[in-house]
């Protein structure tokens, strides 16, 4: 078995992994190996041919492959080594990575630091336990996206979409462009799970109906989907009797959530947060297992790729410093979720770095707050930082930054609580 050694190994070459590999190289890691299971780098961006990428970083509205290509070029120019069409099968606590590919067989990669950038996967039919038969024609939105955008095939002609996730709404528009009829989008919650801009640009502009508080009661058809029976649900998620409707169609797309892909992390024994399904991380994006870092959607699901890139850059820098034995590690302050907050990343702030830069806290709210709100970072009853927002919605990540002036009051803190509360003014 062939053995390779490197300072930093990055698993996954989506936006998080690409950024991490570039930053690791830029911060002095000698050998940076970027391992990708697909034949080309870029991850899921390659099938995201719609625009909307790069608005934060480039102030430009790019399609996914163009956004990816920018970072692929940069990674190549700084000397990141790509290992493509290569599947990581096992990672040990000692940072030995076992992977396979066609040309070299089994490989053992020995790394000083490992960056986990496996992204996320889509929730499936079984996870939302949809009743009915099991015909062809039930696909996750991302699978359909690959078929349409990469392989060049249409998965169906008359389509119902369950879930108002971003990929689902984007596929509603994409399939409409390609001449399919998207009958409607169903959302079990009383609010959108994706971005408002996607609702406007992908559904509203194309006259595709969105039914809130509706779900699939039954899938009909033994061989191929023949129809979907829908039903309304009340505020307690109970079916509203008599609201059932049969919609003839040949395809059901599911856009019912994303789950960070952490099977390899689990193998290593890295602790995962049940709320995010990703590792517990500090502001270096270091997991609770020293020398293992995590970048992007593997930590928690982001709404914008720009944030993923930002997280990757930080993880890559940290991993390079770790590999060079100069990552400043000090006391950690726990960051807890407070009122209306589903989860906050990072889980810990390492005091080792706090004087040096702005630290961003990223969170999702538990429910839509459609009025002026403020995000507050609390140390007990003391407000450390506060930020005003016109509203907060679960589909859109909320952030707040801790700057120089916030650091001094943190010195003696044990834990911080982050909350999003209504603004009275």
């Amino acid at each position, binding site marked *: *078995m062939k053995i390779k050694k490197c300072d930093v190994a990055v698993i996954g070459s989506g936006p998080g992994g690409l950024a991490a590999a570039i930053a690791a190289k830029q911060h002095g890691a000698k050998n940076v190996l970027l391992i990708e*299971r697909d034949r080309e780098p870029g991850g899921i961006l390659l099938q995201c041919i719609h625009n909307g990428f790069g608005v934060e970083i480039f102030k430009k509205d790019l399609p996914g492959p163009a956004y990816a290509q920018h970072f692929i070029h940069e990674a190549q120019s700084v000397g990141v080594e790509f290992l493509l069409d290569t599947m990581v099968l096992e990672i040990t606590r000692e940072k030995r990575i076992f992977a396979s590919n*066609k040309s070299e067989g089994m490989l053992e990669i020995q790394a000083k630091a490992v960056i986990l950038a496996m992204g996320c996967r889509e929730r*499936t039919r079984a996870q939302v336990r949809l009743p009915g038969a099991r015909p*062809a024609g039930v696909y996750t939105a991302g*699978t359909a996206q690959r078929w349409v955008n990469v*392989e060049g095939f*249409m998965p169906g002609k008359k389509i119902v979409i369950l879930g108002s996730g971003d990929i689902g709404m984007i596929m509603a528009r994409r399939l409409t462009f390609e001449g*399919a009829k998207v009958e409607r989008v169903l959302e079990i919650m009383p609010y959108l799970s994706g971005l408002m801009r996607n609702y406007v640009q992908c559904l509203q502009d194309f006259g595709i109906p969105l039914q809130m508080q509706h779900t699939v009661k039954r899938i009909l058809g033994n061989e191929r989907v023949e129809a979907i029976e829908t039903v309304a649900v009340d505020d307690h998620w109970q079916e509203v009797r008599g609201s059932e409707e049969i919609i003839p169609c040949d395809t059901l797309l599911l856009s019912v959530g994303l789950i960070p892909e952490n099977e390899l992390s689990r193998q290593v024994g890295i602790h995962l947060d049940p709320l995010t399904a990703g590792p517990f991380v500090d502001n270096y994006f270091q997991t609770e297992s020293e020398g293992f870092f995590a970048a992007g959607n593997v930590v928690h699901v982001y709404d914008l790729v720009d944030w993923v890139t930002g997280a990757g850059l930080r993880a890559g820098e940290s991993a390079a410093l770790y590999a060079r034995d100069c990552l400043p590690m000090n006391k950690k302050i726990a960051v807890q979720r407070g009122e209306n907050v589903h989860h906050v990343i990072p889980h810990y702030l390492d005091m080792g770095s706090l004087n040096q830069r702005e630290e961003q806290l990223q969170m999702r709210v538990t429910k839509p707050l459609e009025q002026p709100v403020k995000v507050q970072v609390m140390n007990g009853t003391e407000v450390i930082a506060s930020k005003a927002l016109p509203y907060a919605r679960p589909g859109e990540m909320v952030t707040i930054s801790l700057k120089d002036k916030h650091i001094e009051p943190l010195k003696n803190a044990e834990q911080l609580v982050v909350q999003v509360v209504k603004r009275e003014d």
Partner: protein
Amino acid sequence: MNKNRNFDFIIIGGGVIGCILARTLSRYTARILLIEKESDIGSGTSAANTAIVHPGYDAVPGSLKAKLNVAANPMWDDLAGELQFAFSRRGDYVVAVGSDELARLDELLERGKLNGVPGMHIVSAEEMRSREPNINPAVSGAIWATSGGICDPFGVTVAAAENAIMNGVAILRETVFEDFLWSGKQIIGVKTNRGDFTGRWVINAAGLFSDAVMHKAGIHPEFSITPRKGEYFVLDRTEFSVNNVLFPVPSEISKGILVTTTVHGNTILGPNAQNIDDKENKENTQSGMDEVFEGARKLVPNIHSRHIIAIFAGLRAGGNAACLTPGSDYKHDFLIEIPGEVQGFVNLGGIESPGLTAAPAIATYVVALLKDVGEDLHERKDWNPIRPARPQFRHLTHAERDALIKKDERYGRVVCRCENVTEGEIVAEIHSPLPALTYDAIKRRTWLGTGRCQGGFDMPRVTEILARELGVSPLEISKKNGASKFLCRPTKEEGDVE
């Protein structure tokens, strides 16, 4: 093979019963045809069941079910050795919760003794908690039956079919039995959608449809199959698993909702038992899923819905044949006979649980029935009982993987990331003795697409490989048959909207 239309034996039905019977008969000098109406063998009950090799303590004493279950159980080690499918004789448990159920364990133990089941032991609540840490803490005791096992039920079916083919059996899929060919009272063959085939013997192994087949033969008008649906959950083995096969204390009609490990390492929950009318209805229902989940949590309370990665349902072929033992009033026995009313017909019906377990003994029982009526069966000297398994990447060591990839680079490309199934394995199944021609056929043979993402990642890739290997467009590739194609047209063509 297709040119030959004259056989000694024609078996109707390519489930586990038909395939093991075909393989068993292939050791004799005979021309054998097996016809299967679906696009693949093992598509019915054999593909969707609890995958247990039962010790035989729950079958009604004196029944054919009890006799063949207990006779078949010890045959599985050799069968698994010869056909090289996944099988593990790890014992099973019947777990009592509360004092009422504890008393019922003695009845089961007694029934096991009557049936001649070896290796049954009472296990204390404390011992049970240590053997299965996830068990309901309110467990009051258990029976441990050491002869219980778990297997890959589709794996045994396909392995038996392949071994039969190796020994000269013809297997035709998508071949639908329509009627018998007659010469007076003698059945001399079958009419199918692919024309007529003649056979000296026709064997009914049609499972759920065995009633319709025997009615065509003009016998047992009173016999009927009532499909009994069972729903199941599969759990993510990286999230949660049990170490054992755990039965609840059974009810009168069913062995109850199990929590059991499988040869694939995933824990499965189920089945419930619901009598239905439609033999094609394998729908999951809200009430059925709720029942299974609640039932499973009675044995293992800390199962969580987020552990679920797959749902499915299967149909048991529940029959109404009376037990022939004098004095018995049991009405749901296996029916296995060479009937007197017609000639040239071997009739099997009502082969429900423990049908999978009993399959090897059912096959030898049929051979004995044939010999009893004077059929001259000569053992072949060149019969080869060994069906070599093909490499499964995920079960190999890193060194074995390396060697395999060096021999065939396609084993270096992982197509299914959850189960680590490689392109090499997929291609091998497409070109196997009983070629896998659909996505489901590949899934059942390789276990690809059964993990956390449920095929979301591999489906487009498998479609591409199938199309390439079969030399067709990806538009022709289907989930299970021609009516279940994945894709409808290329993009960049005129739309479907008026």
